[in-house]
Structures are given as C-alpha cells and as structure tokens.
C-alpha cells in the first residue's frame, strides 16, 4: 500500500466543558473519497479545523504524505496542498467573486487575471459563477459555489468539503460527483463531510463515523444501508417521519399574481406567482437558491412591500401592506434562511432571542419585558426541541448551527401560527435533528396549520410535502403530488422547463 496522503493519530481537543475530539485516528489514501459522518456536535468540524490549521490539537500527531507536520495556519495547510470548502463562508460581501478569490490565493494574481480561470473551472465543474458579481447580492447557495471554485483553483491534493451538495440541484449534484470522482482518479484525496447518507453511499470509498468526539465506527459505505449508517452515527435506530394523508382545510395563505421587482440589481424578480396553501397542508417549494427564493420570502414575511395588498392574503384577508409584526399578530410564523443575524441575534441570550418574535406570547406586559416569562418560554423551546446548550442564558452564537435552527423552528412553532413559512428547515442540520424538525412541521400541519417549506433539499420536500412546486427564474411551477412525480421531473422544472408539468394545476384553478 502506498504512503497515506493524510494520517491522524490520536487527535484530542478539549474546550472548557466539552471534549470535541477524543483520540481520533483517521487515514486517507491518495485518490480516496473518504466520508466523515456524524451528528452536529460530534466533532467533525473541530477535526477538520485541526487538519486545516485553524485550530491546534491538544494531543495527537498529523502525518502528511508520510511526514509529521505541524499545521499551524490555514496558509500552511494550503501550502501543503490542503483545500477546504467551509460550511460557513468566509467571503467579503462588498467585493466581487474574482476579488474574493484573488484575496484567498495568497498569490499575486489580479482579479482580472483570475476571471478567465474562474470561468473555466466553474464551467468544467458545472458550478456557474460570474467572476464580476458582488458577493453581497448572492444567495447562500451561490456563495457556496464560489467557495468550491476557489478551492479547485488552488489545485489541492486533499480537498475537504463540508456539506457541499445541500444547495445543488440533483443534476448538479450528479455533475459534482462526476467532478469529484475525476479529481479522485487524478489522485486527489477528498474528505467529504455530509449527513446525506444516500450521497455518501453513492460517492465515498470509506467512511469514518464520529460520535461524541470519538470514532464510533468505520465502514465501507457501499456495503452499508442508510439505516445501518444512521444507527452507527446516532447510536440508535431512526424512526422515519410519517405524513398521513388528511383532508385539507380552508385556504390560509394565498398569493395572487404576485410580481415583485428585486430590490437587488442581481436578484431575481418574481413574475406572476399564484399559490394557495390550505390549513392542514404542507406545500413544498423546491429550487436552487437565487431563483427568487429570497424575494418570495421577503414578500411573504412583509420585509418587502408588494404593489397591491391583495397579492398576499392571510386567512382570506389582504395583508400585502402590513409589516412583519402586523402579519405575526395575524398568526403568521416565519423561519428565515439565515439563522444568525436574522432569525436570532448572535450576541443575545436564548431567553432574549425567544423574545424576538415571542412578544405576543405574554412575554411583554404594558411595554415592560417579563424576563421570567421569556426565560420560561426559552426553556420550553429547549426542552421540547432538544436544543443542546448550557441553558437559556447561553448566547445564540455559542450554539451549533443545527441546534440554533432547532431553537428558531421551535420558537416559531410554539407561537402556534396558523401559517408557517420555513426556509431551508434543515440546512446543515444532522439527521437526528432534521428528523425532529420535519416531524415538528408535520405535527403542526396535523394541528391544522398551513405550512410552506422552501428548501433546496429534494429528499426532504418529497418526505414532508402534500403538494410540491418549483421556483425557477422567479416563476413558480404548477403544484404536483409528490407521490406521482419523479425526482428527475422536478429536476427538469428546477432548470426552468415547466413544459412537462402536469395539468393538475389547471384543474385546481378551475
């Protein structure tokens, strides 16, 4: 056997109160696609930060191509030939794509000189990116593409990918896999962090499973089932969510010919969107971000005003001219795509974050905050949704992404909305927590609420939706029944081709 590309021996890392990694060993061979699996808080991110030189281990050795190395900075890691695509992006919003990439290249290439190379790499790997666009105008999904392209430009010998596919269409995922396999065939090793078990089984040669900071198991994913992998990861069996058919109630949320020019010059304008969501119904909207999702969400929440108040209706009443707080008082709940900074205030405690949208739940009386009530509400959210944190006094940005998501979804659900709009409910959330969030959405639907889920994860939408549509280029496809529609068909719609759409929508309209 050849010299391993990367070998970790007994890596340990302790933080006050937490052991993030405990004696983790891992060997990656040249040209191997190696999966790193684990729930949130299992220690995957810490381990990868150690390999990438962001964090230093308390104990353990790192061997790179047979020689022991001290990787004390990301620049050192890049010099060795390690590239990483982070789950949370490190892009400067006010700069263009090419400028961002030039900054990260540690070299003297000017943005203008890089632009053609960016175009070439992005085309070759099916990751459309315009080098001249400003990052602040890009959606989360588009920003991730920039990160991937940026890494590929550095011609790494080990590529670490932290949940790279959550923002791609199924076709683009397949295309990325082709790319990754080609890279592997060229001898590049890939460390692939994901919670999507199907993908890991399709793509990866070897899997290391982390549980509670330790290696919980090693497996050849092609010989395992989703269930057996999931079990290795969470240490118990996972009950799938159940969407039992039920009679839908009256229309609670209605969009009529909603058109909205984008506030952002690079955004996507919404064009004549018609949508009805009934009580007791979950409608899923698929699509790659950047196709009008941000604009649609802002129009729904009230953060953007629409031209005519009748374009958006809640419970039959026009609300197009109401602000977010007024819509909330009419039973509207909303989980935004960005958790930190929009869905929660990073530097405030969970108790004060419960107050962010929970004022109507008796947390404010005569203009005064009732701190005890806010703490109690936060504790209820933490208990009901299994949010892992010290207590309700923890500040929001001390929580992992998945746990904060559970908190925000939990907060909005416990406010008992009649209409709940959720964007990317389980982005970056581990399997166990994702299951819990999906089940909570289904429970809310079973209590008669109308739920609209806007997600890029097709599997998820197929699992929870009663009706399913696609947003592409600012237009909404007709809604279909997920039980009788194939993933490939939805994938075609995601590319903007509604020609194959069922005529079911015309029945509904009639």
């Amino acid at each position: 056997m050849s010299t391993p590309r990367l070998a970790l021996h007994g890596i340990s890392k302790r933080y006050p109160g937490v052991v993030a990694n405990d004696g983790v060993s891992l060997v990656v061979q040249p040209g191997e696609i190696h999966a790193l699996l684990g729930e949130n808080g299992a220690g995957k991110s810490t381990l990868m930060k150690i390999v990438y030189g962001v964090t230093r281990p308390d104990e353990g050795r790192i061997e790179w191509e047979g020689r022991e190395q001290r990787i004390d900075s990301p620049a050192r890691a890049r010099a060795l030939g390690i590239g990483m695509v982070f789950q949370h992006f490190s892009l400067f919003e006010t700069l263009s794509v090419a400028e961002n990439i030039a900054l990260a290249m540690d070299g003297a290439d000017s943005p203008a000189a890089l632009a053609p190379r960016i175009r070439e790499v992005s085309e070759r790997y099916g990751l459309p990116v315009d080098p001249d666009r400003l990052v602040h105008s890009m959606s989360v999904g588009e920003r991730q593409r920039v990160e991937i392209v940026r890494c590929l430009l550095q011609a790494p010998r080990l590529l670490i990918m932290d949940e790279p596919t959550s923002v791609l269409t199924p076709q683009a995922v397949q295309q990325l896999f082709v790319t990754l396999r080609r890279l592997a065939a060229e001898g590049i090793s890939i460390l692939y962090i994901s919670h999507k078990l199907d993908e890991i089984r399709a793509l990866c040669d070897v899997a290391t499973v982390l549980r509670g900071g330790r290696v919980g198991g090693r497996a050849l994913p092609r010989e395992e089932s989703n269930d057996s992998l999931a079990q290795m990861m969470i240490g118990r069996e996972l009950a799938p969510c159940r969407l039992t058919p039920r009679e839908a109630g009256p229309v609670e949320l209605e969009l009529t010919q909603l058109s909205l020019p984008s506030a952002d010059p690079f955004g996507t304008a919404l064009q004549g969107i018609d949508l009805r969501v009934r009580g007791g119904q979950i409608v899923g909207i698929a699509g790659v971000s950047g196709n009008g999702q941000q604009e649609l969400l802002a129009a729904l929440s009230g953060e953007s005003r629409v031209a005519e108040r009748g374009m958006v209706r809640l419970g039959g009443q026009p609300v197009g001219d109401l602000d977010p707080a007024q819509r909330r008082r009419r039973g509207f709940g909303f989980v935004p795509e960005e958790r930190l900074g929009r869905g929660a205030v990073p530097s405030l405690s969970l108790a004060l974050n419960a107050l962010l949208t929970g004022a109507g739940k008796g947390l404010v009386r005569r203009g005064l905050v009732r701190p005890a009530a806010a703490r109690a509400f936060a504790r209820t959210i933490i208990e009901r949704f299994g949010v892992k944190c010290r207590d309700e006094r923890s500040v929001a940005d001390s929580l992992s992404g998945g746990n904060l998501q559970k908190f925000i979804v939990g907060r909005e659900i416990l406010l008992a909305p009649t209409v709940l709009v959720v964007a990317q409910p389980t982005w970056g959330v581990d399997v166990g927590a994702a299951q819990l969030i999906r089940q909570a959405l289904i429970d809310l639907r079973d209590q008669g609420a109308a739920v609209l889920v806007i997600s890029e994860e097709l599997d998820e939408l197929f699992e929870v939706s009663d009706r399913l549509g696609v947003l592409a280029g600012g237009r909404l496809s007709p809604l279909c029944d997920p039980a009788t529609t194939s993933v490939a068909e939805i994938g075609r719609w995601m590319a903007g081709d509604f020609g194959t759409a069922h005529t079911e929508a015309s029945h509904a309209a009639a």
Partner: protein
Amino acid sequence: MLRLERRAQPSRAMRVLAPLIAALLMFVTGFVIFTVLGKAPLAAFEVFFVKPLSSMYGLGELLVKTAPLLLCALGLAIGFRANVWNIGAEGQLVVGALAGSGVALAWGETESHWVLPAMLLAGALGGMAWAAIPAFLRTRFRTSEILTSLMLVYVAQLLLSYFVHGPWRDPEGFNFPQSRMFNDWELLPLLVEGTRVNLGIVFALAVAALSWFFTEKTYAGYRLQVAGLAPAAAGYAGFSEKRNVWLALLIGGACAGLAGIGEVAGPIGQLQPSVSPGYGFAAIIVAFVGRLHALGIVLASLLMSLLYLGGEQAQIDLALPSAITGLFQGLLLFYLLAMDAFVTWRIRRVRRA
C-alpha cells in the same frame, strides 16, 4: 510583518477594564506632556486633578459640570446602542437653552411657580425638535444622521447668536450680546449653600436611573438594542426601523435640550453667545468611555467633568493654554478606541510567505 487577527473569545474582564486602562494611559501621557512643557509633572498633576477637588466649592463645580455631560451622554448612548449616530447633542443643547429661555423672556417679570417647569419642558421639547430634523431626513430620505446632526450644531449656534445679538438682547445690558438675567424663580434652586450645585444634577441622576430602566426593562429598549446588534433580525421581527430612529433621536434631543436649559437656568443665569464649552461633543466620549451603560456613564461623566475643571485650573495656575482640556479628552478617546481594538483583535507577527 505584523498582522491584526480577530480574537476567538474577547475577554469579558478586558471589556470592563479597557476604560480604566485608557484613563491610566491618559494620565501617563499627560505626565510626559507636562514634563516636556517644563512643568514639574507631579505638581502639575496636583493642579490638574487634585486641587479642583480639594474644596467644597470645587466638588460643587464638579457636579455642576457633570450634570450636562451626564444628561447628554445618557441620551446619546440610547441612540448609539441602536446604531443611530447622533453627533449633534451640542446643537440640541443650544436649541434647548434657547427654547427654555424663550419661555422665561416671553412670560415677563411676573413671579410664578410655573415658569421654571415650563422652561424645563420647553428646553426638552426644543432639543427634541432640533433632533427631529435629522430623524426626518434619515427616515424620509435616508440621509446620514451623522452629517445632518453635526451640521445642525453650527446652525443652532448661529441661531443662538442671532437671538442674543438681536431680539432677545437685554435693553438695559449696555449693548452686550446677552439676555436679561433670570430671576430667582426662573433659576434651578441651589442644593448646597456656598456652591453652585443645583437641582440639575438630581435631574441628571434621575435620568440615569430612567435610562437604565428603559434599556434593561422595557420592550422599546429591547427593540432598540436588537436594531443595533442585528439590523436584519430587527427587520425580521418587524421592529420598525423608522420608529427606532425617531425614538433614539428624540430621546437624545430631549436629554440634550434639558442639559441646555439646565445651563442657562443654572450656573449661567442668562442667555449668552456661548452656553456650553462643548458638553455635547464631550458627551460622545463620555458615552463610549461609560460603555453605553448608565452606571458607566455616571462615572465617565465625573471623569470628564474633572478634565474640564483641571483644564481651567491649569490655565490659571500653570499658564497652560485652554487647549489642554481638549487634549486630555482626545487622549482618553484615543486610548479607549485603541484598547477596544486590542480587546477584539490581537497583533501577530507573521513571516512573509
């Protein structure tokens, strides 16, 4: 090569200590400056920081100057916490003084218990009205309140100049640009005989307690805090940005206006071409040195007041220029900003790759 790097976990203790260390560094630099100017540093320090406090009268003066600084800084801090950058407290103070004085001058010489409360109310309203201009411009036209509030300071000072040189000049004042002296019932009552300490400091402390209550306990205070910490979260929660901007500026204006009428109906006793030695600007430093927290601002305003007194004393005893006060203010702010930078960032030596 040196590089600034963000610290993973800014120290809480250092956050609290930073203003104290900044004050210490200010003293050290002052020591050097006195030495270079050829003054015996220890003696100069005594003149600057000890002598003003060594008499009952001096302590009284400390409180007299603390009152307007404290009032202005408290109002500004509420705005700063919400990312509303009112730089024009000085102008709001001047207009407050004008409005309050206007009430007294319009009322005439008849004694009444209602004149003083009416003057105070008019002062606060005057400050609010002046602050309403940047609030309107920001919410209507998205104009930066930093620029508009600052420019309105100079407009306010010209306005004051117009009134004391023109319509409100005391006809029996030998053509000096001043209003008539206010009567006893138009002045804030003195608290301690033999000093100039008046009711103003009590108002200022009451406002400090109110501001603490507002920021810590009220929902409106919470909304302003969220708007400052995470504007997108405030938008998501439906906290109106316009309402926050109006609220922050009106509170700041009212406090500064109250400070203004407190000056003319207090230690000055009449309208003059100048009613403040830059309290409204110094209050910006006070607000930051006090960490935008009510208690911190109380302490910081005492320190700033001492700098004013020490500067005056140094002019008299050491023949130093009046710029010495501004110099110490500048040093304090400079060191505080530097300290804050090092609380969140650290310097690392890196080899060039």
